[in-house]
């Protein structure tokens, strides 16, 4: 596995920037601080409500910032700025899709979801349809999306740290990925949801502050003129003024154009299906606070993406696309390199440590989501038929967290050559196809039945994953595919993102499965669902409200 290190390994030796020793000290400082936060905030974590939902005691703004922290992963901070630095405007398209999707979460999902579930997405489907197979399907899609997202983050960690700590070569990166995995398992086991939420809040605040400071710095260098910045960036790029408009990455051919439309569908419908975002809605006392938290998230995420636009073009101008592509991690290293150009070794160390803390916090959030889904849905809900005591369920969740952490480490080691933002785009496509249709149908369509849910979840999941397997991501393009052997080619789907097919298909299958279901819809259950969703009757309240 060490043989498949990034193709750029030839330049690794020369590419470490800053002082590895100083970077290491700053990294260690961040890790210690976040560990102290996680431990001191953790409390006892004996009940399932404590462990999965932080006692439902967070306020709207706290949770809003924490959701922002979960969402602004390494893919956003490093990936999008990197795409802007290399391809210009096309990176901006990503950030808009990532932001606009939040309106779905705000208006259609947050309140009814908080009102009708306890810990997981499967809870909501279960209240409506009351069927063990549906719970199993929802748990499976939750686990799949979480794992995809986790592996993306782990892959990013390896590239980042190799740049900053001078850890060169495949084995060194593998060790870094393993250390990230160990730290994350520790956060989750000790901190539970309460601990990881506080880590998320602190991290998101530092991340936002860092982004704003760097943005001002870049703008100051350009004389506080956005037009001036764009002018300098275009002048520094070999593509010239083309970087200021769309099309450099996605306008190459008809296939790439539809690829972008496909990605746009995945991004805008995927956000509302991300299990680790949805699970955060349960950490507040009631639906009203859930609504407030999503509005806070929209502010945090939106302002952050506006900063990434400046940072990306700033990196294009001050660092240059060539130097970025030559660095390990390629586009993902644009922001660290920009920080080095602006503020020297110290700022580089701080920015990199923030990015590292981001990865740690996001993987911890994902792990807790996946372990909750397994322990609550699969173990307690299906294997034990709801008959478990909380301590037992929490114990299973902790064991699952260790298992998932291990799987993510192994996956991260294999996937480390792949672009982070791209992998996250795939996770969004799976979330948009497998999770969102059945969730929306359950909440708003009176006729929806268990068969419709099964068809929609499995249809969306299998189509999305299947089309990825038979796409150029996996085989057929020796330059970018996972399988680099040019003789192996089983790619028949021309696009790299499956969203344009799998999302509409999952909605269609949900409808088709329902209208052909011989069992009639359960009117009494829908009445209960709708009353609870809109009024909050019967929803679990928080510790303090």
């Amino acid at each position, binding site marked *: 596995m060490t043989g498949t290190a990034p193709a750029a390994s030839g330049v690794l030796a020369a590419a470490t920037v800053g002082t590895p020793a100083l970077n290491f000290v700053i990294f260690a400082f961040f890790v210690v601080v976040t560990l102290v936060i996680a431990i001191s905030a953790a409390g006892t974590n004996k009940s399932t409500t404590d462990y999965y939902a932080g006692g439902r005691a967070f306020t709207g703004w706290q949770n809003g910032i924490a959701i922002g922290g979960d969402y602004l992963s390494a893919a956003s901070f490093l990936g999008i700025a990197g795409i802007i630095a290399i391809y210009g405007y096309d990176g901006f*398209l990503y950030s808009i899709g990532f*932001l*606009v999707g939040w309106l779905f979460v705000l208006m259609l999902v947050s309140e009814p979801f908080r009102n009708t579930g306890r810990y997981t997405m499967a809870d909501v489907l279960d209240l409506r349809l009351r069927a063990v197979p549906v719970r199993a399907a929802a748990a499976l899609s939750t686990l799949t999306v979480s794992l995809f997202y986790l592996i993306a983050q782990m892959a990013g960690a390896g590239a980042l740290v190799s740049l900053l700590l001078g850890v060169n070569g495949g084995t060194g990166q593998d060790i870094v990925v393993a250390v990230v995995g160990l730290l994350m398992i520790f956060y989750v086991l000790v901190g539970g949801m309460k601990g990881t939420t506080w880590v998320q809040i602190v991290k998101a605040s530092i991340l936002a502050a860092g982004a704003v400071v760097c943005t001002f710095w870049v703008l100051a260098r350009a004389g506080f003129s956005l037009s001036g910045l764009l002018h300098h960036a275009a002048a520094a790029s070999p593509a010239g003024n083309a970087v200021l408009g*769309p099309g450099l990455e996605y306008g190459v051919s008809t296939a790439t154009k539809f690829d972008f439309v496909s990605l746009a569908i995945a991004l805008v419908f995927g956000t509302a299906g991300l299990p680790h975002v949805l699970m955060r809605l349960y950490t507040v006392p009631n639906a009203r606070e859930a609504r407030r938290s999503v*509005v806070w998230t929209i502010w945090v995420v*939106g302002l952050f993406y506006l900063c990434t636009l400046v940072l990306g073009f700033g990196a294009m101008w001050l660092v240059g696309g060539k130097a970025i592509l030559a660095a390990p991690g390629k586009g993902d290293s644009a922001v660290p390199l920009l920080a080095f150009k602006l503020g020297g070794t110290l700022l580089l160390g701080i920015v990199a440590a923030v990015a590292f803390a981001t990865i740690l916090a996001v993987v911890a959030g994902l792990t807790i989501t996946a372990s909750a889904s397994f322990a609550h849905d699969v173990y307690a809900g299906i294997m034990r038929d709801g008959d478990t005591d909380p301590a037992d369920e929490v114990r299973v969740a902790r064991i699952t967290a260790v298992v998932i952490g291990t799987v993510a480490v192994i996956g991260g080691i294999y996937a480390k050559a792949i672009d982070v933002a791209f992998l996250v785009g795939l996770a969004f496509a799976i979330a948009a196809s497998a999770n969102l249709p059945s969730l929306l149908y359950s909440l708003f369509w009176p006729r929806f039945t268990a068969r419709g849910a099964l068809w929609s979840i499995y249809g969306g999941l299998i189509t999305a994953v299947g089309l990825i397997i038979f796409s150029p991501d996996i085989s057929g393009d020796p330059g970018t595919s996972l399988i680099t052997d040019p003789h192996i080619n089983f790619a028949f789907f021309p696009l790299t993102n499956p969203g344009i097919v799998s999302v509409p298909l999952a909605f269609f299958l949900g409808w088709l499965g329902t209208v052909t279901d011989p069992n009639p819809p359960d009117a009494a259950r829908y009445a209960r669902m709708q009353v609870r969703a809109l009024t*909050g009757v019967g929803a679990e309240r928080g510790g303090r409200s």
Partner: protein
Amino acid sequence: MALFQPSRGTASSTYPASSTYPANSTYPAQPVRGNASGYEAVRASRDFWTLRRRFGSFVGPACMLFIGWYFLYVVFAVFAPGFMRVRVFGDINVGLCFGVLQFVSTFAIALSYRRWAARRLDPLSDRLRQRLEGARR
């Protein structure tokens, strides 16, 4: 969009009558039947009908609006890159303004939904919840 449209009148008009369907033929009836009558009554009430209609009348159009606006942007970015490159002032072009407007519209819709929901939805849902929870005690 049918998804958001409240059915006219009461719950029983959506389905002939809940007794026509043996609603719980597959699964044990116990957990639903316990509260079903309370929920059905609330669902059939005037207040709940108003709540649903208000929710749908804001959220339905708002979702159509932002999805249409977003995909309009995507289509222009992909299929009309020349238009997006037209300069507005300095090196700022149409594409950048269009993109930033997506941010502005997202913030605006989020804030107006929050204010609108606090004013128009919350009092109604509070009243209904109190009625249901009071009845249960």
